[in-house]
Structure formats: structure tokens, C-alpha cells
């Protein structure tokens, strides 16, 4: 009887378990000043590492050797070795770094300095500030085009997306979007920039050639007040066909068809879903849920949540190892 139950259980696990891909996810926990390391195959926490104060923005070098982490209250960016998980250096980020983006060649880090209304370009190798670019009030969202020629920053109070030439470090275009834009993401072909507006409750799709908003995507979840729908993080699939938008306190991730701009599905995740990232094989999407202190694994094939795993307090950002 027991062996039969075991066989059934194994069978059930095999069929019902989500995609198993062996990557490592790194999650920044804003409130308890830690970074959680999660194995995506077992969906379990491997280690929790102490980092600087108020860790938020997190990214990884293209070779997967170093993690860059915004320690906002320490006014610095920490460099963490992914093998030893020790802080091995810092970068001069300027005041209160929140979000940043690494250039496609991996040499420059563009950082949004929320309090100084600046975008700082840092040379990763020399650890020197290359330039400081004045932008709108409260800069936050950062994105860089796949060819590395254009960088986009969103400023929360000005409600604009600023297009910056990465050669001249000059703002070339400003595009007005909805209130409090928090995040920007380029489509993999570089044709569009998607910008989420937290208070406006929309995602604006900007044509990169025309530098104009071509579509404003709205959200409606049955049974939820519109005020609770606050789009933040955006992840666009590598084939450019689907965009996943974290809807903050609405506790859902919207799945958008990038051709028709239709919201195809809302996926239930934890409370105050903030940012999300794909595993390199694109089979799994991981979301950080700030208020429920966990991350949710979503199977991108079925677009169903598979499992939620408790991490540190107020998980903010997540990045996946490239290998």
C-alpha cells in the first residue's frame, strides 16, 4: 500500500512539478539587508548573504562572475563574487542608487540617482565615473538598447522617458508617459521601449525610431480596484512575443501579447509583486513579492504559477545567473 502510494507520489511529482532548470537566482531583500541565493531546479534557498543597507537594484556581469547590487542607504554599488558570495569591491554610484543597467558590452553601468536627478555612467573596469547626465526629477527606470547606442531613463516626478545617446551622454529625446514611470525595457530587437507607470496604472509602448508613444496598455483584473493596479517591473521574452508586467499591490503579473498589445492573462503571485526575470532558457519567470517576503516561479509554457518560496524581508529585485 505504502509503496503504491510512493509510486503515485513520484508519478504525481513528475507530472505536476514545474520546469526544472538548474540556474541560480539572486534576490535583493530591501528590508533585512541581505541577498538570497536560490537554486531554480530545486526551488530552494541555498544561502542568504549579508550585504549593504537597503539593497534594491541587482544585476549580473555577462560572464556571470560578479553581481552588482545597489546598496541604496550606503550610497554605493557593491560588487559580489558569485563563487565566494563575498563583497569584493564597490562602485562610486552617487547618492541613493536604486536601479541600473549594464551596457551590452558589459563595460558601463548606468545608474539612476533618485535624489540628485542624475544618471551616472560608471566604467566597471576602472571603477570610475565616466559622466553624470542631468535628467528629470526622481530618475528610476533604466534600459539600454540591444545595440548599446541608446539608453533610456524614466523620471518618476517628471513622468518622462529620457532617451540618452550613449556616445555623447546627451539627452536626445523626452517622451511624456503616464504618472510615475518606474521601469523601462527594450524589446530584444530594439524597436520599442516599454515603460510602466505606477500611478497611471498603464504601460506605454514607445517606438524607438519615432520616439513616440504608439500604445498605452491598460489593465483590469476582476474583483480588484483600479488603484491597486500599479505596474512596475517588465520582462520581455527573448523572442519578443510576450511581455510580463508586475502589477505591484494587485498581486498579479500581466501577460501581454506584444503584437496585439492585448493582455492575455493575469497570473496570481505573492503580495506587492515588484520585479521579475527569466531563467536563461526562458522556461521560468521569477517574481519578487515584497509584502509576502517570497518569490514566485512561473512556468512560461503554461503561464501558471508553480511554486512560491520564502526569501528575506521585502524582496525587491531578482537576477538570474547566465549559466
Amino acid at each position: 500500500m505504502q509503496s503504491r502510494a510512493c509510486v503515485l507520489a513520484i508519478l504525481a511529482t513528475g507530472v505536476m512539478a514545474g520546469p526544472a532548470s538548474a540556474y541560480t537566482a539572486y534576490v535583493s531583500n530591501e528590508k533585512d539587508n541581505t541577498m538570497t541565493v536560490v537554486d531554480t531546479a530545486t526551488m530552494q534557498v541555498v544561502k542568504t548573504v549579508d550585504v549593504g543597507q537597503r539593497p534594491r537594484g541587482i544585476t549580473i556581469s555577462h560572464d556571470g562572475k560578479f553581481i552588482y547590487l545597489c546598496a541604496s542607504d550606503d550610497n554605493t554599488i557593491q560588487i559580489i563574487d558569485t563563487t565566494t558570495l563575498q563583497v569584493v569591491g564597490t562602485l562610486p554610484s552617487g547618492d541613493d542608487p536604486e536601479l541600473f543597467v549594464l551596457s551590452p558590452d558589459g563595460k558601463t553601468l548606468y545608474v539612476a540617482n533618485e535624489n540628485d536627478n542624475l544618471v551616472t555612467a560608471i566604467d566597471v573596469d576602472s571603477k570610475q565615473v565616466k559622466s553624470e547626465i542631468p535628467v528629470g526629477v526622481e530618475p528610476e527606470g533604466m534600459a539600454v538598447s540591444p545595440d548599446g547606442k541608446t539608453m533610456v531613463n524614466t523620471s518618476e516626478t517628471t513622468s518622462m522617458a529620457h532617451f540618452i545617446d550613449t556616445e555623447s551622454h546627451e539627452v536626445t529625446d523626452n517622451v511624456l508617459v503616464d504618472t510615475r514611470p518606474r521601469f523601462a525595457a527594450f524589446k530584444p530587437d530594439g524597436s520599442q521601449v516599454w515603460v510602466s507607470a505606477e500611478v497611471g496604472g498603464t504601460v506605454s509602448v514607445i517606438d524607438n525610431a519615432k520616439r513616440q508613444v504608439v500604445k498605452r496598455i491598460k489593465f483590469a483584473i476582476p474583483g480588484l480596484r483600479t488603484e491597486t493596479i500599479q505596474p512596475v517591473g517588465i520582462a520581455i521574452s527573448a523572442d519578443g512575443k510576450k511581455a510580463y508586467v508586475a502589477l505591484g499591490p494587485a498581486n498579479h503579473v500581466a501577460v501581454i501579447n506584444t503584437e496585439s498589445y492585448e493582455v492575455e492573462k493575469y497570473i496570481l503571485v505573492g503580495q506587492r509583486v515588484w520585479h521579475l526575470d527569466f531563467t536563461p532558457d526562458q522556461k521560468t519567470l521569477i517574481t519578487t513579492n515584497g509584502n509576502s517576503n517570497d518569490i514566485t516561479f512561473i512556468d512560461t509554457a503554461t503561464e501558471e504559477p508553480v511554486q512560491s518560496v520564502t526569501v528575506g524581508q521585502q524582496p525587491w529585485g531578482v537576477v538570474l545567473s547566465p549559466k
Partner: protein
Amino acid sequence: MSTSAMPEKVGAITPVKSDAFGLRHYLICLKGIVLREGLRFLHQRERFISSLVRPLVWLFIFAAGFRQVLGVSIIPPYKTYVLYEVYITPGLCGMILLFSGMQSSLSMVYDREMGNMRILLVSPFPRWYLLVSKMLAGVSVSIAQVYAFLIVAWFWGVKAPPLGYLFVLPALFLSGMMLCALGMLLSSMIKQLENFAGIMNFVIFPGYFASPALYPLWRIQEASPLLYKLCLANPFTYAVELIRFAFYGQVAWVALGVVAGCTLLFLGGAIIAYDPSRGLITRKQGTGGNG
């Protein structure tokens, strides 16, 4: 119909020994009882529709309204957050089994009042076999109702893992047997059809609400430790949890033990109660029983 002449006839037939029957005869008897129950169910379309409408009203209206009320917390067997509709679906399956089990108890009272029960009870097969056959008939009808409900729920977007629909079958069967046995035991204690309202108020509603069918037990524990203990003492609690875990291919061993134990207990009680020599129905007077 003469009620006074019947007991003598019953007495005349009882000497036939049940040992004289082979498996084939037993199966014919079972088939007859199950077919009768099935036909009765099919012919009562209103019953079928109402048995489907009741859980669907809970799913479509109640669950929609309460979607935001339930606090978020991941409890086994769930691995991530689920919508309230998903949470209450196993409870609603349990509700179908509960109402259906009680309905079969209602039909026993009705049969006794109408005299149909005599036809069943004068059968030379052992009493326990007749009762178990009657329960199997009731459970088969209940399970058909549950699957009809699950199909509608599937189209509503409430989906369990595909294999869960298979795994849940034994859980539904065992839970259904427990509730039918309970209904059978209760039916032996009810004198008249009108008393069924009492069963509604004293068994069905408390049984249903004092269980994790509508809200998780940790919520109930937060609200009232006493109510939580009551829920733990409620066999229906374990039926719901057994079904809930089965949907996800897991076995809730404690729930399985409690449900199996209660099934045997209620069934034993019902067999004793329906035993003409010592059972409770011998004390019923003027209700068409065979005492």
C-alpha cells in the same frame, strides 16, 4: 396497502439462508439497487440541476465576493498562491457529497414512509449487504454530480492538475461513503420526512461551516480556538482535506485514517440501527418500518 399483514410475510421469507447465494446473485442485487438510485436521480432533473446549482452559486457568486477577503498564506497542498475559487473547490466537492449523502438518508425515510423500504428489506440478502449496496448507489450518484460540477468549474477557469482529477476519485469515494453511512445512521433515527429539516440545521450546516471548506483552519484558529477544536472534531473537515490533497496527487494520511475510521463507525452504527431485532427502527411506531 396493508401494513399489518406485511411483517408476517417478512417473517415467512427470512428463513432463506443467504449462504445459498453466489456472487452473481449479490451482483444482481447490487446492480438493481444502483440502477434504481441512478434512474431515480436521472428522472428527477430538478434534483440534478439543484445539486449542480448549489455549489456553482457558491463558486460564481460567493467566491467572487470573497476573493479579496481571504488572507494570503500558502498552506499545503498548495505550493503557491491560489484564488479563493480554487481554495473552495474541494470544499464544494465535499458539499455535494454531504448534501447527496443526506439526500440518500432522506430517501430512506421516504422509502420507509411509502413502504418501498420493505421491498428492499425483505430481500433474502444480508442486511449489511443491502445497506452497503444502497450506499454504493448513493455514492455513485454523488461522484457523478461532483464530476459534473468540476467540468463546469474547469470552464470557469478553476483547474486542478490534470492527473488530480484521477487521484481525487478514491478520495471522493471514501468521503462519499463516510457521509452516506452517516446519512444512513441518521435516517434510522428520523421518524418522519418532516424531521429532515432538523438534519439540515443540526448536521449539514454546522458540518459544512465548521470545516476548512470555506476558509483555512489557521484562519478559524485565529478567530476562535474553540471553533478550531470543533472543526478538528468534525469528520467533514477530514473529508475536505482528503479531497483537497488528492487533487494535488498527495495523500493526507491523518485525514485518510479519520475518514476510513468514521466510515466504519457510521456503517457499523447503521447496520445495527437497521437490524430488525435490536436496531433503532424497531422502536419506531406507525411509520411503516418493519418493526
